[in-house]
């Protein structure tokens, strides 16, 4: 069985780790001190680039690359730490904030040193009252100990950290939505470009990083790039010749919830399979796995045939899904996929910010269609197509073959694909919220179509057996197209 590899969470359960002194005893701030003593800011940026660290917030974009886009000559530059953890199924940042806030502060300090940033805003979810309280207390302590403020440790480095509470809007987890919200406006995402790295909060260059990404920095600096890159697979991107290295290095805080015996956060090296993770979390609660959502509710669902997919950024992308924020939700054989989709679509219809028409009108429309199907009023019709052949009476004529058309299923796919097209990966909205809606809608439908059809046919929620409900691999579009990446030798 795969063993947990606790790095970020190593000292999480140490009593009093939220205080400066206990954190200091467990190597706390030593890595920041090493950074300012031994490295130039550019060295750190290079280390982060070499480490292959990918952003843990959802997009999985290379952190080093993101930093390289920030213009050096425009000041001030801001750091926004994204602690607006709202994706259903994700809850790893909460524990960092509540139990080990100094680790985040250390990560922020290293980022600020590398990028020459003096002001950091931690955008923290409005509902995280305890997390905000703990972080505020830790920041106060760090100021008192001289690790924040002006002229830190006599190096001339100035860093201020402010916490900024959100107010319950999911869309503020999107980086430009977060920036708008931070500026005191509605959290409606901006058009990109300009990217936040060039023009972000207060029209100044801004680095937006997830809590988990920043918490990785002390370990990259402290233990070195070589140590860090040993963890997790590095694939070869075969679009290039010779294959270009595509690192999925480090550990990930996998949040697993739903029908497993021991839900929780497990810190594991990237690259274990979905089935292995379910095993680590105490196995499935119930008889068998019906479906797994691999990366928060926006990620396309995986069927039981796809449980051998490795849970890292590259593998899941090539399997037509995504790792996202690492929130894994498991469903067992008793679950009805239509019902699950309805729940998720209610979420998205509620959380659409209302800026772009396809999303504002499309999300409630999708929700209403799924609601109609779940209520047993799904629309279908039976048509007789004139097909010529040997008819029942033995003579040449219309065979009268009938075909059932599930109009609502076609409509559902069409509406979802018009918010964002999952096949071409183009969206008709400003931000990626559009694709976060149509991905689940279309993937649930295509992968569990028999259950949708049965529900419409029977006129009520009908749960089929796992085997009957799942579209077999030979007809599963995603399974057919998926590519299993190969590790570099």
């Amino acid at each position: 069985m795969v063993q947990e590899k606790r790095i970020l969470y190593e000292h999480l359960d140490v009593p009093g780790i939220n205080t400066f002194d206990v954190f200091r005893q467990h190597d706390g701030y030593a890595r920041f001190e090493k950074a300012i003593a031994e490295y130039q800011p550019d060295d750190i940026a290079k280390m982060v680039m070499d480490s292959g660290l990918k952003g843990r917030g959802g997009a999985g974009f290379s952190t080093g690359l993101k930093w390289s886009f920030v213009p050096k000559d425009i000041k001030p530059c801001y750091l926004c730490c994204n602690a607006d953890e709202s994706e259903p199924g994700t809850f790893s940042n909460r524990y960092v904030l509540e139990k080990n806030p100094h680790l985040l502060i250390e990560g922020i300090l290293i980022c600020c040193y590398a990028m020459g940033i003096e002001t950091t805003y931690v955008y923290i979810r409005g509902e995280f009252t305890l997390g905000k309280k703990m972080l505020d207390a830790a920041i106060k302590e760090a100021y008192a100990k001289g690790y924040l403020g002006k002229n830190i440790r006599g190096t001339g480095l100035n860093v201020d950290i402010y916490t900024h509470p959100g107010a319950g809007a999911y869309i503020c987890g999107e980086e430009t939505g977060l920036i708008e919200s931070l500026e005191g406006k509605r959290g409606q995402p901006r058009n990109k470009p300009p990217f936040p790295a060039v023009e972000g909060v207060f029209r100044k260059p801004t680095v937006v990083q997830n809590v988990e990404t920043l918490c990785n920095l002390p370990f990259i600096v402290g233990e070195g790039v070589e140590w860090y890159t040993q963890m997790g697979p590095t694939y070869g991107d075969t679009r290039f010749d010779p294959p270009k290295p595509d690192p999925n290095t480090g550990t990930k805080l996998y949040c697993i919830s739903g029908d497993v015996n021991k839900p929780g956060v497990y810190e594991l090296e990237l690259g274990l399979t979905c089935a292995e993770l379910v095993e680590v979390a105490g196995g499935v609660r119930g008889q068998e796995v019906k479906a797994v959502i691999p990366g928060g509710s926006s990620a396309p669902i995986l069927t039981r045939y796809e449980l051998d997919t490795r849970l890292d950024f590259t593998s899941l992308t090539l399997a037509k899904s995504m790792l996202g924020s690492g929130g894994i939700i498991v469903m067992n054989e008793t679950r009805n996929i239509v019902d699950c989709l309805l729940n998720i679509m209610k979420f998205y219809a509620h959380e659409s910010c209302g800026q772009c028409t396809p999303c504002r009108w499309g999300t409630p429309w999708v929700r209403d269609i799924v609601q109609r199907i779940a209520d047993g009023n799904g629309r279908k019709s039976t048509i007789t197509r004139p097909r010529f052949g040997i008819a029942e009476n033995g003579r040449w004529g219309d065979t009268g073959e009938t075909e059932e058309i599930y109009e609502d299923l076609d409509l559902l796919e069409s509406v979802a694909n018009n918010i964002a097209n999952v096949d071409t990966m183009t969206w008709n909205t400003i931000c990626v919220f559009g694709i976060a809606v149509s991905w689940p809608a279309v993937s649930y439908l295509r992968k569990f179509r028999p259950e949708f059809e049965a529900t419409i046919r029977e006129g009520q929620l009908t749960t089929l057996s796992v085997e009957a409900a799942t579209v077999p691999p030979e007809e599963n579009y995603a399974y057919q197209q998926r590519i299993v990446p190969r590790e570099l030798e």
Partner: protein
Amino acid sequence: MSEELIQIQTAFRFSEENQREFDELIGHYPVKEAAMLPTLHLAQKQAGYVSPAVMTYVAELLEVPLMKVKDVVTFYPMFFEEPVGEYVIRVCHTLPCALRDCKVVLEHLKARLSTDVASETDLGKGTTADEKFTLMKVECLASCDVAPVIMVNDDLYKNLTPEKVDKILDNL
């Protein structure tokens, strides 16, 4: 200016303690408008909800048009535009909680408080007659490992069953 308008504008002031907190947080931002969310949180904590008087006051403090404050208040679900009960009970009903029977918890709360669930446009629907509780459904509270969860004001309660809910309500 009509008398009514004057009344609205003078009806709300920060308490001394909150004024101090506001003075501190306004210094965090290069533009005043950016302090909108924390200021509204602070004002809501004092007034119980964001009344027109509060909005006018905040607009004056941050030197922005009233419309901008209203714009923000209507966007974020955590700001209440009408009075709510002393205890606001938020029940998470997103997928991981739904898989762990949050419906049972919600139904139990509805029966025990004999109230309906508040909707965004009608908070009164979820408020009990004695104005002690407001029951509302919210989206994911990021505690899926300990589902089902509810939040009562600022406190999170985990792994709930109807019995545990009873205990929580009894202790309030």
